[in-house]
């Protein structure tokens, strides 16, 4: 059965840790990222547009409120003037202007003193002549402030019979302003009544106005020159921007109030400017609240989405895991467990198809195994037939050989003296032929035995094998007076003892055979250790092998020489190669023509053995 192939399901891919992540986490993470992106984008866009609307609405409201206030204050200014209108028709004042005599002065002073609103608001009332010289003055206030009053702040009435409100002037804590009434006669300017008044808004009145405006607004009144500003109670710092020049709404930082939207508007008939400021923080407060709520909603959405995605991911990943486990089981040869996924979606049909496939695979696997069993049996049968064939050859083919050889020899021995030399040679040739054929059959049988025999590899001491083989070859070695040198100690190798003996016998026999008759054979057996293998060398001082033939000599029936020069079947080295290959090794030869050959056999080393 094949080794189960396990894909690294849990192991993260080194290139990207995300791609190695389970669907159970990958899906929720992706959906989480999606929801988060959408939420953030949507929240940001909503926040931007709500903020924009809030600011636009605030600007519009600021404009209309400033306009309304301007109109309202314009009306108030008229009322401020109304109280001075009486001076227009006051004869005492008119008379004093025309003829400023001492006699007329008390009456004019009395008239001036009676003009205007409640006394507490009046600082002083003055009468100026046509040359713009102050001719009379009634001071209600004894403080030195009166001396500081600046006539440049007076708004000299632009037209006949019309009064005007002048610029504000800060004197200490107080704010004062002049109210002017122009006196004319027949189109000629007689002079002016100028009354200096103190600003008189009550905190309650101011608060009411501010509440009416709302939005934490700031309300300021200033000069048209922009030098003096009041929040209607006291002097206020100037705005950092020249609001009189600005068209529409401006934006700036008011110290203590932060960023504000502001709009200024001149009050007609006065030298005043009204300024309304909306703090941006107040305008944007509902926007911020909206943003918080939206954020909360999105967070809930993200959490819920994450949870749902996790559940969905699990519902996808679990059947897939089951399928993976089942696949691994199949790879391990277990066809018994079908996948149980009770669903009617794609995963369900995948599981169904998988189970169907499982059935098919199981069936064909069984069929295959059956077939393999059948074939194996067939092969074994064939093998037995073959072995029987070999057996027959060894038995039957050699019987007639024995007869040929035996009776030829019997003929030579028993009736040799009655045969002429030619007949004797014939008989001798029969004997030799039979012997050669016997060798051939024996070698063929050896080759076939080495090819198919089951070789159980065990640790074999090469030294012992060499000793045995040399003893068996002793006679032929002695016949050639060969010198054999074995480099002790030879190592222990992994091999089949009888087969190893045959290999060494064939190699030594081969080495001995190919030393020319006039040379004393010098053979050497040695071993070297390398690459976890052991190479055994069998070296001779024989005729050598030309390089172009070195590959051929290990093939069956390959012979380089005629039987007359060097007799042999041409199978010996083929047996060596086959035997060594069957023992998991290799063979080879290094040789120079005329200088001997060095055959090598590479065998497996025994673990833990040192050479």
């Amino acid at each position, binding site marked *: 059965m094949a080794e189960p192939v396990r894909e690294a399901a849990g192991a993260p891919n080194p290139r990207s840790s995300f791609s190695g992540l389970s669907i159970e986490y990958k899906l929720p993470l992706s959906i989480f990222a999606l929801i988060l992106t959408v939420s953030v984008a949507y929240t940001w866009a909503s926040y931007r547009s709500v903020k924009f609307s809030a600011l636009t609405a605030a600007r519009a409201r600021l404009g209309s409120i400033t306009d309304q206030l301007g109109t309202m204050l314009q009306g108030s200014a008229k009322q401020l003037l109304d109280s001075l209108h009486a001076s227009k028709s006051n004869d005492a004042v008119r008379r004093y202007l025309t003829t400023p005599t001492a006699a007329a002065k008390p009456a004019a002073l009395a008239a001036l003193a009676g003009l205007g609103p409640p006394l507490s608001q009046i600082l002083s009332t003055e009468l100026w002549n046509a040359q713009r010289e102050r001719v009379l003055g009634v001071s209600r206030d004894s403080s030195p402030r009166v001396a500081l009053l600046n006539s440049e702040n007076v708004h000299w009435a632009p037209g006949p019979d019309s009064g005007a409100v002048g610029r504000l002037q800060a004197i200490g804590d107080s704010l004062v302003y002049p109210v002017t009434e122009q006196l004319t006669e027949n189109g000629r300017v007689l002079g002016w009544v100028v009354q200096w008044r103190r600003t008189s808004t009550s905190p309650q009145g101011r608060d009411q106005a501010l509440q009416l405006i709302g939005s934490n607004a700031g309300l300021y009144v200033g000069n048209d020159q922009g030098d003096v500003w009041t929040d209607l109670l006291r002097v206020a710092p100037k705005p950092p921007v020249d609001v009189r020049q600005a068209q529409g709404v401006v934006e700036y930082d008011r110290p203590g109030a932060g960023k504000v939207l502001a709009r200024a508007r001149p009050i007609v008939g006065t030298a005043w400017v009204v300024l309304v400021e909306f703090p941006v923080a107040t305008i944007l407060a509902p926007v911020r609240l909206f943003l918080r709520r939206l954020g909360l909603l999105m967070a809930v959405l993200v959490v819920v989405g994450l949870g749902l995605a996790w559940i969905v991911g699990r519902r996808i990943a679990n059947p897939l895991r089951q399928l993976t486990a089942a696949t691994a089981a199949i790879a391990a040869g277990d066809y018994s467990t079908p996948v149980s996924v009770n669903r009617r979606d794609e995963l369900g049909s995948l599981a169904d198809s998988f189970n169907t496939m499982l059935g098919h695979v199981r069936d064909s696997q069984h069929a295959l195994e059956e077939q393999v069993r059948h074939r194996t049996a067939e092969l074994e049968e064939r093998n037995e037939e073959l*072995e029987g064939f*070999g*057996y027959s050859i*060894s*038995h*039957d083919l*050699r*019987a*007639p*050989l*024995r*007869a040929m*050889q*035996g*009776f030829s*020899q*019997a003929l030579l021995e028993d009736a040799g003296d009655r045969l002429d030399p030619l007949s004797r040679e014939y008989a001798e040739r029969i004997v030799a032929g*039979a*012997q050669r054929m*016997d060798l051939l059959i*024996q070698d063929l*049988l050896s080759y076939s*035995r080495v090819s198919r*025999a089951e070789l159980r590899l065990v640790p074999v001491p090469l030294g012992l094998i060499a000793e045995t083989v040399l003893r068996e070859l002793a006679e032929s070695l002695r016949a050639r007076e060969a010198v054999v040198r074995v480099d002790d100690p030879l190592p222990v190798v992994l091999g089949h003892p009888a087969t190893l003996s045959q290999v060494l016998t064939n190699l030594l026999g081969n080495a001995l055979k190919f030393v020319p008759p006039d040379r004393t054979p010098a053979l050497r057996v040695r071993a070297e250790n390398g690459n976890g293998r052991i190479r055994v060398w069998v070296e001779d001082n024989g005729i050598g092998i030309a390089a172009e033939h070195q590959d051929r000599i290990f093939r069956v029936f390959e012979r380089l020489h005629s039987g007359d020069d060097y007799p042999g079947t041409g199978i010996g080295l083929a047996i060596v190669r086959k035997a060594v290959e069957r023992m998991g090794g290799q063979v080879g030869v290094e040789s120079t023509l005329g200088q001997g050959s060095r055959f090598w056999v590479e065998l497996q080393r025994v673990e833990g053995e040192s050479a």
Partner: protein
Amino acid sequence: MNAGGQVILIVEDDPNDVLLIQRAFDKARILNPLQTVGNGDDAVAYLAGEGSFADRQRHPFPVLVLLDLKLPRRSGLEVLEWIRGQVGLKRLPVVVLTSSKETTDVNQAYDLGANSYLVKPVGFDSLLELVKSLEVYWLILNQKPDVSAA
């Protein structure tokens, strides 16, 4: 040689081989009488003293059996198995003399109780050597057990 009655039974179907073995015995000057049977059934009948081999005067009980493995009818291994199964015969020295070198044959023969396993040489000289050593070992040196016909 104590040629008196120490019969050697040769179980061999090939008349050539029989002739060559007989000649080898002659050449080695072994005077033991040789009895020959050509198949497994005859070998069993001879040893059991049945049928045409009932007359122990003409077919004396052997002291050694040379047994070929490949025989018509009952095979050599079957004959060997039969011998080892007989109460009176199980100690009878049996030398397998065959042309098969197959390991399975060798192992099976020894498993069934062969005393020796020899491969027939092709050369007559070798056969002669073999027969000589057979005589030296089995007929002269070896202490013979008590064996009686059933």
